């Protein structure tokens, strides 16, 4: 018995050292990518400022100038205030979109009739860039927090909704049969089969939705805001503080990167049963 089983154990790939070397090379190349980016930035900025004046040096400050501008803004407390303002809008809008998107997406994924009722309208609205609605949102919801939160929620809703519907709809019917033959009720099947099977889709939708929230907040803050990272960039533009503008962009990039990494970690943890989620 035992010997028979051992024969059928899937063999582990015995190339661990090769895999380790590959991973080290990957890390090295990734670090080189970032180093090279800053090096080129530095080179262009310094060469332009001191050797050949190709354009006005004010237009492209060197990385350290941006860093100094950042330190200055942290000292004055301005940067923290703007980060907090943007993040609080993103989180509120995103959470709203996540709750509504997953709930409505689940309902539509479960009911063919509801799908017929809801899908055409959504398909009609989806191709319109959310930005087109921004001026209207300001008119409807005022220039306060409300318009920005609503705008983010609107933009993030679509990917969350669509991926949730797909996930719920395309659950392997064989798994549902298997569960039914094991005594699962309709409710059990939803909770123990449909939801976990749709989870990878839902998580992907949430990740895209979060990225989009971040994407649109800056635009919203350009138009009507007195705080936030978008405001920071737009405000710096009126005073021609290019270093501050770049700083705003860099901070947005850094925050986006951190959140995406965290979400990917969470995804890998929740979906550790998937082979491709391991890498």
């Amino acid at each position, binding site marked *: 018995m035992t010997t028979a*089983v051992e024969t059928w154990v899937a063999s582990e790939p015995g190339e661990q050292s090769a895999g380790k070397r590959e991973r080290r090379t990957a890390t090295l190349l990734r670090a080189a990518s970032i180093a090279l980016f800053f090096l080129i930035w530095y080179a262009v900025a310094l060469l332009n400022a001191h050797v050949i004046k190709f354009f006005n040096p004010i237009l492209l400050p060197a990385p350290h100038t941006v860093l100094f501008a950042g330190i200055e803004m942290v000292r004055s407390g301005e940067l923290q205030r703007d980060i907090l303002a943007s993040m609080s809008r993103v989180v509120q809008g995103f959470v709203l979109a996540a709750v509504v998107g997953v709930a409505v997406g689940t309902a539509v994924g479960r009911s063919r009739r509801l799908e017929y009722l809801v899908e055409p309208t959504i398909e009609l609205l989806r191709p319109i860039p959310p930005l087109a609605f921004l001026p209207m949102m300001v008119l409807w919801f005022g220039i306060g927090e409300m318009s920005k939160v609503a705008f983010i929620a609107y933009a993030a809703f679509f990917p969350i909704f669509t991926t949730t519907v797909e996930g719920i709809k395309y659950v392997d019917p064989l798994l549902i049969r298997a569960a039914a033959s094991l*005594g699962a009720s309709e409710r059990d099947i939803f909770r123990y089969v449909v939801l976990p*099977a749709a989870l990878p889709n839902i998580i992907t939708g949430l990740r895209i939705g979060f990225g989009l929230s971040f994407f649109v907040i800056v635009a919203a803050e350009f138009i009507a805001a007195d705080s936030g990272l978008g405001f920071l960039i737009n405000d710096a533009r009126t005073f021609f503080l290019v270093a501050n503008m770049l700083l705003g962009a860099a901070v947005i990039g850094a925050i986006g990167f951190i959140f995406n990494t965290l979400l990917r970690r969470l995804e890998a943890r929740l979906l550790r049963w998937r082979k491709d989620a391991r890498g």
Partner: protein
Amino acid sequence: MLAAASAAAKARTKIRIEAVSKSYNGKPALSRVDLELAENSFTCLLGPSGCGKSTLLNMIAGFVPPTTGQVVIDDTAVAGASADRGVVFQEYALFPWRTALANVEFGPLMRRKPPAQRRALARHYLELVGLQAHEAKYPTELSGGMKQRVAIARALANGPSVLLMDEPFGALDAQTREVLQEELLRIWEQERKTVVFVTHSISEAIFLADRIVVMATLPGSIKEVIDVPLLHPRDRSGPEFVAMERSIKQLVREEVQKLGVM
């Protein structure tokens, strides 16, 4: 020699298939079938693809309703799937987000057994199929043979009186298939279930079954019911085994020819 057959004749009827037929969109997939399966018997439904053998199994499982007639189990007509009929699928149908142990625990979980009892039951059945060392693995980490062992343990952990198997070893390599056939017989002798096993492999049917239901095609129906009087363990190269294989092959070949694929 005839011990198995006469024992089956004496046992009470477990599954009664009464005038069951099935058509899809007016096209007949299975024309009228009447069949009685004895309690604790091992029946193989044998035939080429398109003979309706899986359709018949799905109707016994309660996954699809018959167009006419009914399937009666223990004097109750089948109306939907039930925990009393365990099903093992060719594609394993394991829940990929659950470990081997959690997959086996699924049935007891659905019957709201307390966690400790669930775990104990699942461990017992994983051990029965020889996978106790792999309980923490996810299906993606298991080989095909191991996945099917987990699926069998999962079906048994619910304590069903009927075990329905739809070409369970069809996707496995020949060696794994033979090992699992032997283990299935060992488990069947130990657990005593009424087994209905769908296959298109003649030697698999002769090796496993008390009775072989050879199915006809166009439309699907029963062609012949054959009792297998050989004692276990059966010798696949023994003269009676080979003779039986040859005569059933002739029957099946006629049906395949009807499909026009040969």
